[in-house]
């Protein structure tokens, strides 16, 4: 359980985090979204005790982050932005070092190291120096050190940034396979990631919380959510007929050969009427499909209002 109250961080005159309130419960996988410079990393640095808040408080597992810093740090696994690691060490040396600092000993240490190495697939590079690893492997080493002590709270700052699609997929799977009673906080500006792995999306911009709900709820904020799009074969015909169909509230020209039909909420299925119109008009149609809201658009409209 994480309880953030009136959290504010100022760097001189610049307000990086502005009166943030947030409660996160066990089992929550939170996607922390926001444009660059929104205060995501600063918030995470305060959660992990790296930065001191200017005002406000953070409680993790019923403990105050500033007052019981060491105890809180034991509960947290953290992957800082850019995955810093001691480049001159080998992967094995590095993980041993982390295990020692985390107080893992004997059989438990051996077992945890083994588990983590299999979990993030590091067996092949254990004796390589970290500086010689590819970006993907470096990130895996960073993840391995974060989950080594099986923490209750896992904080990952842009864990998939700069990885190729396969690597992104692996990282997401890893996060999903963590046990269900943990708290995971992921910062990202990749929106599809949030719907792929998170059960909660929090958007911040200019240090303020703008949205806090499920990724599905975020999609529903899109004007295109549940809209029906028609892609035409060749040139787009006159589609004004569509406006006459009951339940249709708007037609959006969403491309040179594409229109999107937005229905009223009370009509949960517009397809039959649309089909009829398409049939009657004799339009040459390439595809008809239902849209799930464009997260990008919602994100942009939300964060641009503040900027």
């Amino acid at each position, binding site marked *: 359980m994480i309880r953030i109250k009136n959290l504010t961080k100022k760097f001189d005159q610049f307000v990086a985090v502005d009166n943030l309130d947030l409660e996160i419960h066990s089992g929550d996988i939170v996607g922390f979204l926001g444009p660059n410079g929104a205060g995501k990393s600063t918030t995470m640095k305060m959660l992990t005790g790296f930065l001191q808040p200017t005002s406000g408080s953070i409680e993790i597992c019923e403990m105050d982050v500033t007052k019981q810093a060491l105890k809180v*740090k034991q509960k*947290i696994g953290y992957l*800082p932005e850019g995955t*810093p690691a*001691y*480049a001159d060490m080998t992967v094995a040396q590095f993980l041993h*070092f982390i295990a*020692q*600092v*985390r107080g893992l000993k004997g059989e438990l240490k051996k077992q945890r190291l083994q588990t983590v190495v299999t979990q993030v697939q590091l067996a092949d590079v254990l004796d390589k120096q970290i500086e010689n690893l590819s970006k993907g492997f470096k990130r895996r080493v960073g993840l391995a050190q974060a989950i080594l002590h099986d923490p209750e709270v896992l904080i990952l700052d842009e864990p998939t940034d700069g990885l190729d699609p396969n690597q992104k997929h692996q990282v997401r799977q890893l996060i999903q396979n963590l046990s269900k009673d943990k708290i995971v906080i992921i910062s990202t500006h990749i929106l599809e990631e949030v719907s792929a792995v998170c059960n909660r999306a929090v958007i911040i911009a200019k240090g303020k919380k703008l949205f806090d709900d499920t990724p599905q709820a975020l999609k529903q904020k899109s004007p295109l959510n549940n809209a029906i799009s028609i892609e035409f074969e060749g040139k787009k015909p006159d589609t004004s007929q569509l406006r006459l169909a009951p339940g249709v509230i708007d037609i959006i020209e969403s491309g040179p050969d594409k229109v999107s039909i937005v229905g009223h909420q009370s009509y949960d299925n517009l397809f039959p009427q649309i089909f009829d119109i398409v049939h009657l008009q004799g339009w040459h149609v390439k595809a008809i499909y239902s849209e799930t809201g464009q997260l990008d658009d919602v994100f942009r409209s939300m964060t641009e209002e503040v900027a």
Partner: protein
Amino acid sequence: MTSVIFKREFSSFFATPVAYVFILIFLILSGVFTFYIGNFYERGQADLMPFFNFLPWLYLFLVPAIAMRTWSEERKTGTIELLMTLPITTTQALLGKFFAAWAVVGLSLLLTFPLWLTVNYLGEPDNGVIVAAYLASWLMAGAFLAIGICMSAFTKNQVVAFILSVVVCFLFVLSGSEILLSALTEILPVLLIDTIASFSFLNHFEAMAKGVLSAKDIGYFIILMLVWLSASFVVIEHKKAV
């Protein structure tokens, strides 16, 4: 936890060429100073004074070189964020790093043992004095190191850290030198000059290198280390996230 940090730092000196280069250069230069410039043979005395007399000047450049990466590198590569979010305190990290570098310097001192063998082979030196002088050298190295570590906490740039610590160390060494003090007698009152001279590494070191281990000289170096390490603590806390 300090010991875990110590081990990592110590082995990191040897994982990179830093420790090897440091020890090699230290041994070569101390040999050159002792035999060629210090006239070890020509003096006809069975002691290691030529070696110890040049040591402060050798440390002036070599110790800042080994201290410069301590925090600069952590801040530059961002590993400081990793280190400081692990369940350790800043003091533990600081002490672990300090002792690791101090151990490397100590090791290089130990490796000058051929000098000691030579002087024992050639004559009958007072080995008690030599032990005291070695101890003094190590203490003085610790003080140089504490200054270097503090300067390293100030900046992300290792070269800047090196230059800053050479300058600060130079002031501490120079404050006891004849040239400076005689120049100052013209303009400053005696009390002030005595104070300046009492800050000097040279005065405290030379007394100990002659075999006189007084609490005043030992205390001087220990207090100096504590002061500069405390300063480092403040600087790290202030600068870690910048």
